[in-house]
């Protein structure tokens, strides 16, 4: 145990004391919101099309007042299409909409073709949709007008419904659930596990490889059993990941609270000084939103999810961490590692790909099966959990995961103890199988 602890301590401290760790740990929580806000900001400022001039050549005569939205700078032109095209090129405007002569006398006709949009560059989908919508709405309103139907009748035919879904628990108590929130939670936790395996698994591999290439490993294994070295490494790197996660959570909470205190405070104060009435409305709305969120959170088993997350998080990390260590011990360089990395990644990638299907139907046989297989269960079970999973399935999946990671650690340990002492060997799956069965 002392040896594992010493290895653990070294792996942990050398990583945590690095400047790059400090930088990544502090910058990531700042970087992500900054990125998101940056994208939103750019999208908002860039969204302006007001300075884009659009010519409208309306040969039908129905659209004189249709193009009235302020998104573009419309101007109507007259003459033939060729003249309009010439003018379009001459003045270098953004686009030209051509509306041909239309026959609206036939009330049964619902399809109208031959509208054209000319521009120098390929217009985006949203631009085309905008124009299509304007034309369609105008045509529909003309046809409605002519049909003599009261618009109120049309409106009264449109209904909206709200289908609430409930979980009928074993107690017979109906619990409201929220599919959107459940999916979001499933995605977030699934991806966290995926990222963690990916980032810290490669760190384990790098660490094993460093010891091998720097040739210190033989000195180390003359005082530490290879298995202890491997476990110390897996635990140490894992603890670094946990530390990082913890700091992120603390940082994000602090930043959010600080953000609310700084930006929320004065804003609220100004509102208070403003109209008393509107402030009251504001308040009740806010209270309602908070209550809504609390309600929603009440629909998912938060404690169960968090405890399970820690469990699956650790299980997945041990399972894949050991495999990464085995790969690192088998090769002499990062390049050689690629051929072994891919098969390891296949189950994780499969889990991520099937995540969409699982969230669509969390109780399908695909979802249940994948949440049992230790290689995919951490990601898939975390995705299923918010939707409610029978206790026996959860327990079985956990037992299988424990068995799974003990199995992979055992297999990895056998490969590792031979691999770390092999230099310049041409490694393929056959040699690895040989190392696995080799008596050391």
């Amino acid at each position, binding site marked *: 145990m002392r040896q594992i602890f*010493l290895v653990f301590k070294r792996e942990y401290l050398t990583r945590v004391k690095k400047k790059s760790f400090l930088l990544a740990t502090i910058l990531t929580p700042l970087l992500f919101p900054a990125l998101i806000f940056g994208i939103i900001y750019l999208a908002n400022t860039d969204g302006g099309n007001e300075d884009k001039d659009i010519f409208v050549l309306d040969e039908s005569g129905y659209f004189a007042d249709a193009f009235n939205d302020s998104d573009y700078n419309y101007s109507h032109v007259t003459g033939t299409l060729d003249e309009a095209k010439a003018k379009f090129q001459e003045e270098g405007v953004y686009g030209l909409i051509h509306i041909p002569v239309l026959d609206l006398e036939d009330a049964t006709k619902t399809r109208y073709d031959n509208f054209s949009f000319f521009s120098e560059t390929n217009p985006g989908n949203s631009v085309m949709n905008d124009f299509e919508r304007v034309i369609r709405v105008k045509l529909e309103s003309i046809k409605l007008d002519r049909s003599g139907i009261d618009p109120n009748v049309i409106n009264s035919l449109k209904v909206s419904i709200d289908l609430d879904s409930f979980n009928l628990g074993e107690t017979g108590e109906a619990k409201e659930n929220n599919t959107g929130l459940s999916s979001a939670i499933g995605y977030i936790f699934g991806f966290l596990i995926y990222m963690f395996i990916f980032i810290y698994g490669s760190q384990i591999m790098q660490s094993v490889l*460093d010891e091998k290439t720097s*040739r210190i490993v*033989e000195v180390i294994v*003359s005082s530490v*059993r290879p298995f202890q070295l491997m476990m110390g490494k897996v635990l140490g790197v894992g603890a670094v990941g946990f530390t990082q996660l913890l700091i992120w959570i603390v940082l994000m909470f602090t930043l959010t609270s600080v953000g609310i205190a700084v930006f929320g405070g004065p804003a609220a104060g100004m509102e208070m000084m403003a109209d008393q009435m509107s402030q009251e409305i504001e308040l009740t709305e806010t209270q309602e939103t908070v209550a809504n969120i609390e309600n929603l959170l009440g629909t998912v088993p938060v404690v169960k999810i968090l405890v399970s997350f820690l469990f699956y998080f650790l299980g997945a990390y041990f399972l894949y961490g050991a495999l990464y260590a085995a790969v690192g011990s088998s090769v002499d360089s990062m390049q050689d590692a690629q051929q072994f990395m891919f098969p390891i990644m296949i189950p994780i990638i499969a889990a991520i790909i099937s995540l969409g299907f699982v969230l669509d139907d969390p109780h399908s046989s695909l979802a249940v099966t994948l949440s049992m297989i230790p290689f995919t269960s951490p990601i898939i079970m975390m995705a299923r959990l918010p939707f409610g999973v029978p206790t026996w399935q959860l327990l079985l999946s956990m037992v299988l995961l424990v068995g799974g990671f003990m199995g992979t650690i055992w297999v990895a340990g056998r490969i590792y103890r031979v691999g770390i002492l092999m230099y310049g060997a041409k490694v393929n799956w056959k040699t690895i199988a*040989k190392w696995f069965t080799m008596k*050391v």
Partner: protein
Amino acid sequence: MNILEANNVSKAYAAHKALDDVSISIPKQSIFGLLGPNGAGKTTLIRIINQIIMSDGGEILINGEKLHPKHVNVIGYLPEERGLYKKMKVGEQLMYLAQLKGLSSGEARSRIKNWLDKMSLTEWAGKKVEDLSKGMAQKIQFIATVMHEPDLLILDEPFSGFDPVNANLIKDEIFELREKGATVIFSTHRMESVEQLCDDIAMINHSKKILDGTKKDIKKSYKSNKYQVDYKGQLTGLSPEFSIVETSVIEDDFSQAIIQVQNGQNPNQLLSELINKTEVHGFTEVIPSINDIFITIVEEAQS
């Protein structure tokens, strides 16, 4: 009392036999040479002693006890393939390695300080290994090997990477450690490099031990009763007990001859005969080097 005894140790990798029924015993406080060409099985034996790998058969005794995990702390091992953590600071690295060998951090700290002072590396304690010169890194590796004052020091190809200055420094340290009670195993394929250092030797070839014993006895038993004579002028007409094996001219009229003395004759008789025949300038017994003995044995085995 032997600090280490290996009895009938065998080790095979698939079809390849790495060690075949090898037995050696190493007396306490000796300097022991484990000799043989590359691939003979020396490193396999050393790894078994270090409990890095396990033997298929046979047993290893350390101080009369069967090999046990606790024994890693009485051994100091400098492998042939050796290195350090490049990104780690010298002091922290030595601390880590010392603690792995069972030293407390307080004890380790004072020993590290003493050793760094001794090797005049004190001001490098806070530097990363990658900033060190190769010679300095070698000294650090040596410190890491001996820091926990092991009873048994195993040095695999110790001088292969060392420059001559460091090699001498290390040799002196090794002798000092031996004086303090340590036993040293040198493993090397460059037999001439340890010939003058060793008290006892064992030779391994093709996974088998082919010879062992004290260096003195071995050399004695492979002495072939030949003498090298430097002389001026001519040398002819020796009695039949003495036959000239080969002659060569050194310079001008100085020559050198290797003379085989028949059993039952002693060098004094040869010398007195030579004095009558020529002008003797040098007279030494031809003692075979360990390397020569090795080649002789291998050739005998082949024929």
